[in-house]
């Protein structure tokens, strides 16, 4: 195995593209090293991207907040401006593991590990986040929900690296929230999760919304019907009932020791309702 720590993303992409065997990107390593140790993967090359300045910081740009691919959870949690604009995304990211894991784990790593139960991902999908990808063919931008295509699988091609993630600029009267169900208080994998982001128009009527569910399908799913159910409403009982039905209809979960199909499906609706209420309050709705 080789270890490389380039200082530009292009260099990193070139190293990955040229690798003869299996090559992996190392940011926080909280998933990668576990997979290496368990023998699931046997890398020929590890490309550590933490020395690349473009991956290291959170910056506020005209397009919104740009979060580098090697920014750890603790740094995300320490950004007051980010927390104010996207509290749901920050809370979701800070739910990943212990303080020790937070010291290393990254949003982009959580995304590219491609688990259907990844905590930050439903919040990022609800937020309408986009990733900046650098590869041998140059740069491209991709919606976050297009990155993961199945458990452990992404749409990235050989040599491509996600350099950063951008959360869009926040209109006034917007709010987001993320909730997950686990059978304990923390340190667990989501049985079901839901992320909601919304913006209010005049008189507290929802004018834009995005709803995403985690751990109820092979990938995190964006549920446009759930968003439609609450757009134009003030989150009254009828809209919430429609939201619940849309979320339940979008579920295609597995049956395992964490939860049955029926349980996961029902809880998805419950969490989406609760997350929508929190997001609505955060947006200033009453």
């Amino acid at each position, binding site marked *: 195995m080789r270890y490389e720590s380039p200082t530009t993303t292009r260099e990193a992409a070139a190293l990955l593209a040229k690798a003869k065997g299996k090559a992996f990107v190392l940011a926080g390593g909280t998933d990668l*090293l*576990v997979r290496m140790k368990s023998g699931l993967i046997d890398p020929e090359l590890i490309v550590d991207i*933490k020395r690349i300045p473009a991956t290291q910081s959170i910056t506020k740009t005209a397009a919104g907040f740009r979060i580098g691919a090697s920014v*750890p959870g603790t740094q995300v949690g320490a950004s007051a401006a980010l927390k104010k604009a996207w509290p749901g995304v920050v809370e979701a990211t800070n739910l990943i593991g212990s*303080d*020790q894991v937070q010291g290393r784990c990254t949003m982009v790593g959580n995304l590219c590990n491609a688990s259907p139960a990844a905590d930050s991902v439903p919040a990022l999908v609800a937020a309408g986040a986009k990733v900046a990808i650098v590869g041998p063919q140059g740069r491209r931008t991709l919606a976050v929900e297009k990155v993961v295509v199945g458990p452990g699988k992404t749409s990235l091609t050989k040599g491509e690296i996600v350099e950063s993630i951008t959360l869009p600029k926040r209109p006034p009267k917007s709010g987001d929230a993320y909730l997950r169900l686990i059978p304990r208080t923390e340190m667990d994998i989501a049985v079901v999760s839901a992320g909601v982001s919304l913006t209010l128009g005049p008189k507290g009527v929802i004018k834009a919304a995005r709803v995403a569910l985690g751990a109820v399908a092979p990938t995190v799913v964006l549920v446009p019907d759930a968003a439609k159910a609450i757009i134009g409403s003030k989150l009254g009982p009828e809209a919430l009932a429609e939201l619940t039905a849309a979320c339940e209809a979008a579920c295609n979960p597995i049956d395992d020791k964490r939860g049955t199909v029926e349980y996961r499906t029902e809880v998805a609706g419950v969490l989406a309702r609760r997350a929508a209420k929190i997001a609505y309050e955060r947006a200033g709705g009453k």
Partner: protein
Amino acid sequence: MSGVHVSTTVNGDATEYVCHPGETLLDVLRNRLGLTGAKEGCGTGDCGACSVTVDGSLVCSCLVLGAEMEGREVNTVEGLADGGTLHPLQDKFIEHAALQCGICTPGFLVAAKALLDRNPDPTEQEIRYALAGNLCRCTGYDKIVHAVDAAAKEVRKQQKAAKKASGKKRR
């Protein structure tokens, strides 16, 4: 397999080593540098027995590569005491009998130190959350939480005294 040469700082001392590219920081500390305080409990980042700080950030050293440490600052439980004087956390762990077999203790001490460095006056809930990544299978957690609470009081007392002393000097 070629080795990676690393120059880094461990507990304030400039340190150099050559390690395998896939070797963890935990293995480097224990097997190459003789620092056996950090323990391997699970090897998957779940138990916290291998906790150390890297550039001030609390991490599981079993999930960090030794090769990544070029130019970083690593602090382990071995750096906690000031020469022969134990850190208040170490004193209070002994006083409150917050350990039995001792395997988890170095990790708890390092994680508790990281907590007190950023929050010298934590509530019981904050202590419990901050130590949630450290597992103990002997004593249970109450004694550990009480020891950290007592150490926090002691640290605040020492900080206050140091502030007073430096204030006097300036006058």
